[in-house]
């Protein structure tokens, strides 16, 4: 249906472009009217006039489809006690009606036995509502089709009629396009606002159940307690005390990120130094892309590798020297994450090392310093701010990394700084709390947004700090 509509849209656009241009040419050569724009622009003019209102209305219809549907189907006439229903029950019934609406209008012969029994079990009102729903889908489909075909045709026809010697199409078209371009560049801001609002709103909902002080400072993390309580009866804040404590997640995140940094910083920085200062061009041309491959590998692959090979390997090694190592140790997740971040550190450091002016190197060599002395005493101090910036960006990457920790780290919160023990992270818990049933009235789901907000602010802070540092450094040498 939607492809059909899009196809029609494309055809209509082309037809209107052609009609508009044709009419303009006709006026110019047969009517001897002097046009104030090129004929092309009349074509664009007709297309824009025909399509923009239709697209806007279609978008509106899409946005409010749910509201229309509810008005049509979940009316108090069919369900007198609807105002007393909880969101959960509403969702269940709507789901049931959706299933019913698919089969309600089919002939009985086409139904399987399972479908027949579903029909038999439904009440009379539910059947009516399901029929309404099926009809609604039909009406909605037709109204979409109307929007896509009839409205553009009428508008396009009117726009074509309005073409005359007086109409100056070019400035109008250019104005509209300017608005479209301007709007596009604001979408990036809209996305940020969207992120912030959706996180803040749901986080506020979460803090209605859980005291913020409890959340940020308590050390117990047992989100399953929220299951014990029936959501419709409301939560007692005492029930949720120590259920959502952020501290063990924070320490787990920092622990794994620290392990990752211990791997990534020396390896990344030394690779960058070697490739920038020592390696011949041929070595660099081969080694650099290979290291960059590490950056291109999806994180789910690292997670799989960490869980399948790295964690058992570390456990075996640990046990052979008599150390008790968990199968979900923070070390395994951290190591895999570190490998993932190596190319990130190395390419950012590479950029800053290359930006150090050659004159500094030459000066140091002239004083008799060896290459390594030049690097350690001249280049690195000169590039320090930039390198720090790249480290901060890498930390922000590590904190926000999800798949590796979801697959290789533990789900159980554990307040520890021992990398051989299991630890959980913020991102792991966001994923865990959203897998399965998503209920926007249960703190077990909502906590994901509170965690997401915290994560967003943490990474934002690190990024801004890093970008400011890097910018300052750049200004010094440019």
């Amino acid at each position: 249906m939607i492809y059909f509509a899009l196809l029609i849209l494309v055809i209509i656009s082309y037809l209107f472009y052609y009609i508009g241009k044709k009419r303009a040419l006709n006026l110019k050569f047969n009517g001897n009217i002097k046009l104030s724009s090129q004929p092309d622009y009349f074509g664009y003019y007709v297309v824009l006039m025909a399509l923009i209102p239709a697209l806007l209305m279609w978008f509106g219809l899409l946005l409010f489809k749910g509201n229309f549907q509810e008005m049509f189907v979940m009316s108090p006439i069919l369900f007198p006690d609807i105002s007393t229903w909880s969101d959960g029950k509403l969702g269940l019934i709507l789901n049931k009606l959706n299933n019913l609406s698919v089969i309600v209008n089919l002939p009985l012969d086409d139904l399987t036995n399972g479908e027949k029994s579903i029909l038999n079990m439904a009440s009379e009102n539910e059947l009516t509502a399901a029929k309404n729903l099926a009809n609604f889908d039909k009406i909605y489909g037709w109204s979409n089709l109307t929007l896509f075909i009839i409205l553009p045709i009428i508008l396009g026809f009117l726009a074509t009629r309005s073409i005359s010697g007086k109409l100056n199409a070019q400035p109008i078209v250019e104005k509209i396009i300017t608005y479209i371009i301007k709007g596009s560049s604001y979408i990036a801001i809209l996305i940020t606002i969207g992120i912030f609002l959706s996180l803040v709103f749901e986080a506020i909902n979460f803090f209605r159940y859980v005291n913020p002080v409890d959340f940020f400072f308590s050390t117990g993390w047992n989100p399953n307690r929220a299951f014990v309580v029936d959501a419709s009866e409301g939560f007692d804040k005492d029930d949720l005390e120590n259920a959502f404590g952020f501290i063990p997640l924070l320490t787990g995140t920092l622990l794994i990120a620290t392990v990752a940094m211990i791997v990534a910083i020396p390896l990344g920085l030394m690779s960058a130094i070697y490739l920038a200062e020592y390696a011949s061009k041929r070595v660099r041309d081969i080694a650099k892309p290979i290291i960059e491959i590490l950056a291109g590998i999806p994180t789910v692959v690292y997670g799989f590798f960490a869980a399948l090979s790295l964690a058992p390997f570390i456990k075996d090694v640990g046990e052979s020297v008599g150390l008790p190592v968990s199968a979900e140790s923070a070390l395994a997740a951290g190591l895999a994450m570190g490998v993932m971040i190596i190319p990130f550190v190395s390419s950012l450091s590479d950029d800053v090392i290359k930006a150090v002016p050659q004159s500094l190197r030459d000066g140091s060599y002239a004083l008799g310093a060896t290459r390594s002395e030049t690097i350690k005493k001249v280049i690195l101090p000169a590039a320090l701010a930039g390198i720090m910036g790249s480290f901060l960006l890498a930390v922000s990457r590590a904190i926000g990394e999800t798949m590796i920790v979801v697959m290789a780290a533990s789900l159980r919160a554990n307040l520890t700084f021992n990398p051989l023990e299991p630890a959980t992270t913020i991102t792991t818990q966001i994923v865990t709390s959203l897998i399965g049933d998503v209920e926007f009235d249960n703190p077990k789901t909502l906590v994901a947004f509170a965690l997401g907000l915290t994560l967003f602010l943490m990474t934002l802070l690190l990024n801004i700090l890093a970008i400011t540092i890097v910018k300052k450094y750049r200004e010094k040498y440019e």
Partner: protein
Amino acid sequence: MNSLNKRLSAEKRFQAYGLFAVALSMFFVLILMWKIFSTGSGAFVRTTIEANVFFNPDFIQVNQNSLEKELYRASYVALADEVVRQNHPNLNEEQFIKVREMYTRKFDYQLRDYLLENPDKIGQSIIMKITASSDLDQIVKGNYPRDVPEAQRKINDYQLSVLDKLTSEGKVSSVFNFWFFTKGDSRDPETAGIWGAVMGSLYALIICFSFAFPIGLLASVYLEEFVKPGKVTDIIEVNINNLAAVPSIVFGLLGLGMLIGVIGLPYQVPLVGGLVLGFMTLPTIIIASRASLRSVPPSIREGALAVGATKMQTVFHHVIPLSLPGTLTGTIIGMAQALGETAPLLMIGMVAFVMEIPGGPLDPATGLPSQIYLWSESAERGFLEKTSAGIMLLLLFLIIMNTAAVLIRRRLEIKW
């Protein structure tokens, strides 16, 4: 002199550290690839057992004149059991159950699909290669050891003896596993395929491209060509740079909270997945496209303006076409990143068990990386193989996309 030697050996040591770091990083790439290829290659073949199949009309209760619908709905489970009994005569009930376990549970579907294609075979006997169960498959491939005590094996001694008998009769063979590339997910590893996930990812990427490419291109045009640097552009610029560094899981939360929660788009569909990936890719495209626009020399613009073009004509007729290769390169790299992103797909539900192959962006689906994640969570050895094979396919797509990006850059990009 002594101190010079010290300094020179320090120099050597430092260089060795650097070389070691590079070598170690490259070693990680190798070990990752080796591990994945060694565990995944098995997924491309599957073990089959040759069997005589008699399409007995009494068992499936259809005849030569039955409609396709009747053929489709008929029950093939009894027929499947009968095929096992015929090919392994004189089994007692216990033995029968064990032998039946050696074939895939879904082999009634295999019979059905065959009959739907060849309806004239009703009442006839043919020889068919029937897929073996995943456990048998793993034994044949050598991934499960045979020489451990019976209690530690998923295939017991009796089944092993039947297998050896079948092998000596030449009835066990390996065929290329087309199912892996044509089927959707399944509960049984031997019938699970990746195609549903590939289509899910494809639809998501199409949505992602149709959202992010036009908007990214137009936004960069506005920022580079139409506004003078000022407060607004500064805000947008800082914003874009920050957006590029926001963790992907946060975009997933945006999709869940905004697109699904507020706007009411459905759960676990590629449309939402594609939009979320589009939000993530947008900054990458804008940054690449701006760099590419900036590299178009001012003389082009001045030339166009000098012969009377408007600003809009200059930009759309001259500047954008010249900068398009750079923009496309950035777009493809951004899309390759989007293809590998898993976390946002988890947030918006594209990580459920979906058997059907999605027919559009509004059908429930998984994506390629989330299918890999799903399989990796399963304990069965058969799925381990599928996970690695899925990763190989994902890496193949990424290599193709990145190569395309490099080729576009080399072939089409104009050096000024």
